[in-house]
């Protein structure tokens, strides 16, 4: 099973609703040179009564497949807004945003839900696991919404948990796991749909330094395995784990640093 799920022509794979094709989250991930993210002149304006606030002011950048990019900035810099747009949780006021070749800036709520489900794996600061469900049931959730059948869901969820080293904890509920373990469950959940992009929002924010190092090491491993990762943080040390750092301030990208391999900033 090495069929790539990306479509070079960029249209949404409509057939994937009924017959999803998944590839194993292994190290033999095929590298696609088309950019995973293409942002062109993104603006986001929030209206609060008569007051207009520009959270993003013309942000443009690209993120290539298999890149590991940190987006760094203080609070109020627009980094959360950018993260919401990258995560298809929100649409820009103007500008174009393409994720894996698809223009997400004009999608309906329903279409955005499908894109989030198939293209993006989220890792949140608060873990956001459902307390009433066991680890594997949390991991299978995205597959549930993708319409995968039960046995296949369980198999993939267990594979994913094994990938993050939690094969002995699959039936534990979040309350019975440490913070670091919970975040690893969340990473397993982000991996399970084999997404084009893993979006990690302050993934170490709620962890002690040992667990944080553990999680960063895991992200590093995933990157080495060929995953595209965007890490959002305010912590320069955490950002240092990435290949490249984009600094954002007052809704604009200040600079783009290259560490190691290919990729272009602005």
């Amino acid at each position, binding site marked *: 099973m090495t069929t790539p799920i990306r479509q070079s022509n960029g249209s949404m794979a409509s057939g994937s609703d009924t017959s999803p094709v998944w590839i194993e989250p292994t190290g033999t991930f095929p590298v696609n040179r088309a950019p995973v993210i293409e942002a062109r002149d993104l603006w986001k304006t929030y209206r609060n009564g008569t007051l207009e606030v520009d959270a993003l002011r013309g942000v443009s950048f690209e993120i290539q497949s298999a890149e590991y990019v940190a987006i760094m900035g203080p609070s109020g810099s627009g980094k959360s807004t950018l993260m919401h747009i990258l995560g298809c949780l929100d649409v820009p006021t103007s500008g174009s945003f393409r994720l894996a070749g698809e223009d997400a800036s004009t999608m309906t709520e329903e279409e955005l*839900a499908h894109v989030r489900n198939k293209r993006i794996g989220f890792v*949140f600061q608060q873990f956001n696991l459902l307390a009433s469900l066991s680890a594997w049931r949390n991991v299978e959730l995205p597959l549930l919404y993708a*319409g995968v059948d039960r046995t296949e869901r369980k198999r993939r969820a267990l594979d994913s948990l094994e990938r993050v080293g939690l094969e002995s904890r699959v039936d534990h509920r979040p309350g019975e796991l440490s913070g670091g373990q919970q975040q690893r469950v969340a990473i397993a959940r982000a991996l399970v749909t084999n997404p084009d992009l893993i979006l990690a929002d302050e993934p170490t924010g709620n962890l002690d330094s040992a667990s944080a190092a553990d999680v960063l090491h895991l992200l590093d491993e995933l990157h080495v395995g060929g995953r595209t990762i965007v890490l959002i943080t305010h912590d320069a040390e955490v950002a240092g784990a990435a290949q490249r750092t984009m600094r954002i301030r007052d809704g604009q990208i200040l600079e783009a640093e290259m560490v190691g391999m290919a990729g272009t900033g602005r």
Partner: protein
Amino acid sequence: MNVIETFRTGTEAVVAHRLRSALTVLGIMIGITAVILTVGLGEGAQQQVSSQITALGSNLLTVTPGSTTSSTGIRGGFGSASTLTVADATALNSKVVAPDIGTVAPVISTNASLVAGTTNWTTTVVGTDPSWLTVRGRSLTEGRFIVSHDVTSKANVVVLGATTAQQLFGARDPIAQTVNIAGQPMSVIGVLNTVGSSSGSSTTSDPDDQAIVPLTTASSLLFSGASRNSVSQILIQATSAGTLSAAYQEADAELLSLHGITNSAAADFTITSEAQVLSTATSVDKTLTVLLGGVAGISLLVGGIGVMNIMLVSVTERIREIGLRKALGATPRVIRRQFLVEASVLGTVGGVLGAILGLIGAEVLPHFITDPITISPVAAAGAIVVAIGIGIAFGVYPAGRAARLAPIDALRSE
């Protein structure tokens, strides 16, 4: 996400919030139980009344002395306490004057103390003739009833109601025993069958607690003075239910003529039909059923609003969960369905449990109250359907709210 998965997710959420779900279910359950029991009580009362109509015979007329006027209420007869006489009864029994009247039984009744050995029991003593048994539609469990010879010879014999016999003699056989009524020794010749108490109607006293003696014995021994020849009631059975109104008119005309009254508005007697009284009782019971049903319906509505309340609280409490599910790819439709399933599951479980509790209540309650409860399967099934409907109807709004939540707002909330 298919139907089964949606259903499973919804059910899991119900189970995950056990206490809240249990309280909601309780609300619906009480509503459904209330509907089933109140409707059952009403139906039971109606059935009881209609079975009494059948038992009494719909072709029965009762003539009582005195009449009612619109201005003064009840008016006594002229000159004496009672204007009905044995002669009236005899006249009504004539096939020539009153062809539609089948059987006539004059009745004198009073309350008296019955003494058997050391046991004392106060009951209604009825003086009548042999046709009473036919008119009242009764039979005997043992012994014999009063015969014509007993009436003509003023025999000192008595037929006891089942309850009366039980009170006076307990388990002993009352036949041929002696009972003292107003100081007169009477020989027990028979015991009436049991018909059960008639709690549904106030027009008759307990038919199982009375003592029947010959009319002549009653008037000469138990009553004194002017009332000797008068009777307190004349029971008339029409030849059939169809001839009841004809019998009524014949009795009315005959009595007016016998009493020398030309203006029927000045009549010194009243003729009533038992069926008339009971049909009034039935309609009262029907009104009661509607009233009780209305109260139960309101409690069901309150239960439904309870479901909506709980679901709305649930939406607020679970903003993060909804946001997360949406971030992971749940479409608004999927979220809406999940919440609808939750509400319907609560409604269904409440409805089924309420129906079960209602059925148990219908079995148990009649042991503690005198009124019977008739469960109508239609009402029970209807109540369950209504409960599911309530779950869905009152779940739509909260589900819509949950589905509209923006995932980012939801994820940000703490």
